[in-house]
């Protein structure tokens, strides 16, 4: 590796960023998100999306977030407000005016000690730093999945495989097979898949300190009966596969990538009985 390779790589990144700025600062993306694009402009952006990967990703990213997103945000704001109001209702301890306030001095930042760098040579340093750049992220651990919910019918002594009805709640517990320190934020997504049909499932995930992820959700009320695969995907923020990718994976066993694990579970869905 030559001496200036790092600077040349940085120059390349800067050029690519300048190119992306030209593409993504186009005001038509703003109008797409606001839903105020003219039909001609929309057709232009769609054509652009067909000819460039970056424009295709941008079209998806700027497409209006829609009514479901709007409803979710309004509900969450109301929920947050209710929690804060409930917390405020708890009486606070009042400090009597006669108690003198203690002034706590702000911590004084300590100067960083001077560190002598002992690079063998600049070229070796480049090689080492480049290797550190490329191979810094460890493998994501394998996870196990346990799904609870549904109904089990008893026939004789044995319980049958659980069956689910549209609108049923479910809980999924995802546990790492080895202890794992998650500094990188985790994201969880849940999908239902049958043949070519893929449905994202609205679910809530909580990551516990030990790395266990608790997922709760509800099956769609209009979910057709049949055998579905529930995919629970857990991985590092920004790396999770899209829904289309799941359609290409075998549902026979968990699938893992360096940054995520996708765990399948078969769900037998029966029609909901009339209430």
């Amino acid at each position, binding site marked *: 590796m030559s001496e200036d390779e790092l*600077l040349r790589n940085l120059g390349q990144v800067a050029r690519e960023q300048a190119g992306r700025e030209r593409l993504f600062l186009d005001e038509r993306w703003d109008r797409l998100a606001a839903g105020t694009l003219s039909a001609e402009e929309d057709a232009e952006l769609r054509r652009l999306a067909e000819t460039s990967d970056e424009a295709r990703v941008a079209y998806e990213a700027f497409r209006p977030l829609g009514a479901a*997103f709007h409803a979710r945000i309004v509900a969450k704001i109301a929920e947050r407000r209710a929690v804060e109001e409930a917390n405020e209702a708890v009486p606070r301890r009042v400090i009597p005016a006669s108690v003198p306030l203690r002034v706590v001095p702000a911590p004084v930042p300590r100067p960083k000690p001077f560190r002598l760098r002992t690079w063998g040579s600049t070229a070796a340093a480049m090689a080492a*730093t480049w290797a550190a750049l490329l191979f810094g992220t460890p493998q994501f651990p394998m996870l196990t999945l346990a799904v609870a919910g549904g109904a089990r019918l008893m026939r004789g002594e044995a319980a049958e495989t659980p069956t689910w009805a549209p609108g049923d709640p479910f809980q999924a517990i995802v546990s790492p097979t080895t202890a794992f320190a998650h500094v990188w934020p985790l994201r969880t997504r849940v999908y239902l898949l049958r043949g070519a049909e893929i449905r994202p499932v609205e679910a809530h995930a909580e990551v516990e300190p030990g790395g266990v992820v608790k997922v709760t959700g509800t099956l769609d009320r209009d979910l057709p009966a049949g055998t579905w695969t529930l995919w629970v995907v857990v991985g590092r923020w920004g790396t999770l596969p899209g829904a289309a990718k799941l359609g290409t994976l075998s549902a026979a066993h968990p699938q893992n990538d360096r940054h995520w694990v996708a765990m399948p579970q078969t769900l037998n869905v029966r029609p909901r009985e009339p209430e």
Partner: protein
Amino acid sequence: MDAEESVALLRAALDGDGHAVDRLVAVLTPVIQVRTARTLLIRGWGGGGRDVRSEVEDLSQDIFMRLFEKNGRVLRRWKRERGLSLENFVGMVSERYVKSFLRSVRRNRSKEVPTDSDDLDGRDDGPDPQRVVAARERLQLLLDRLRRRVSPKGWEIFDLLFLQERSVPEAMAATGLSRDAIDKWKSRLRQLALELMS
């Protein structure tokens, strides 16, 4: 939405008027979405087969929660007298949030350490697209740091030699500096980049 309308809508929403909250979310959603998507995409987060739309949704939701938490503390900081519209204020908050989030994600990536090394046995350690993307993201972070730390003259030299890929004689002609001075700048830039990487 003009400033007066913004003030009235914000006040009503923060007082708990459900219709005002509904309207405010409708007004702010495209602003937050655009700033979030643009910040992610310009910084190269559209590559590596990522589901960028889902990330935009998640981050937009996080930003809304940040705006409204603690009785709308962040939203209450907006003052029309300072000249920024409510939409631009929220856009600025959104952009800062996403940039800060990306910085923390990139910094933390290498700190995540498996505590059971057996788990890594038998894995294929050859380069994969995700790793290449990760390496590029770190270069992007390094570039951001370099841009902030280097002097205007240093950035001009970097721009000429490594962004525009001009030759040293061309850089000499453009800046009026000697070959020796250009070489010294290259050396300083290289040293600074190495320091910022550590």
